[in-house]
């Protein structure tokens, strides 16, 4: 897994982000973190809180979220999750949206009711990016896209 992470970090846009090493790399990984005002010591707590808060999630959404959190779990050993500042919201009372704001804009991942996984980015300069994928998407690449935007 470590090799996989190293490979991705070197080959994806994350490496090009000046913020990565300055802001995200964290030497202390064994601490209690907070996500969206929820204190979690591991991703299981966060996952359970998502299921409780967004009770509309269907089977395929849950499966996709599990895949994403698995990728996130790999990254938590390398990055301080407090600096990721991932927030959660529902869209149309049927879809789960994870979003975060950076100096460049706002990036979003939506797990919709039809099993689609939508990545979108809106830049402070007006730039707009959108990609719609199915459950076969490489979740680690999606995660890096999300946190490096």
């Amino acid at each position: 897994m470590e090799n996989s992470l190293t490979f991705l970090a070197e080959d994806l846009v994350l490496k090009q982000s000046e913020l990565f090493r300055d802001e995200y790399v964290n030497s202390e990984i064994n601490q209690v973190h907070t996500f969206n005002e929820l204190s979690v010591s591991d991703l299981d707590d966060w996952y359970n809180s998502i299921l409780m808060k967004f009770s509309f999630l269907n089977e395929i959404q849950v499966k996709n979220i599990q895949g994403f959190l698995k990728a996130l779990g790999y990254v938590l050993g390398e990055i301080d999750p407090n600096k990721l500042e991932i927030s959660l919201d529902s869209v149309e009372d049927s879809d789960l949206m994870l979003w975060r704001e950076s100096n460049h804009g706002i990036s979003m991942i939506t797990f919709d009711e039809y099993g689609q996984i939508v990545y979108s980015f809106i830049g402070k300069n007006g730039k707009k990016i959108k990609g719609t994928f199915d459950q076969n998407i490489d979740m680690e690449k999606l995660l890096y896209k999300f946190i490096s935007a």
Partner: protein
Amino acid sequence: MTECSLAYIPNRLHSLGKEIIPEFSIGEELYYRCSFNDLVKPYQSISLYDVSHNRNFNDTINYPKDDVLYNIDSDKNIERIPEKEISTTVIKSLSENGTFEKILVSKNNPDLIAKIKLNHDPKPCMYPHCVFEISLNNVIVNKDNYGNTLNKSGSTYKNLRSDIRIELTSIIYSSIIDNSEDIEILTDL
């Protein structure tokens, strides 16, 4: 247009006797009233049939942005809408007819075509009021037909609504109206 019956609204904002001005201009500002949280991520809270703003006609003295906080609903017994922020958007480019028009073709079904258009829509007590009007295959979407048009079920309509939300959110989030900027499609990750 009927006469404004709200005594606290200044005469300069009354619409009676004034014309609709369909053309907008570069540099003109639009003002959007919203809660603080929506300044960051208005994505999911924006309705897709009534996105109201105030315009300023490039005249910040007679049409200051604070006007957007006036309550123009006579059923509410307040002069100003409390606890709201004002988002300012600047028009950077326009179509040939002097307004903002964005055509969005469904990726799933090219026969489904949505249009977002900026219209001057004066109210009796708020002359600078304007709206982003959304239509689907030339049918203007409103509260009554929303469920039978743009809000139909299925991933095709879901994706088209998502595209519209990105456009509208971009306008508010980036504070820029740019007719020439399209959504870049990401096909591979």
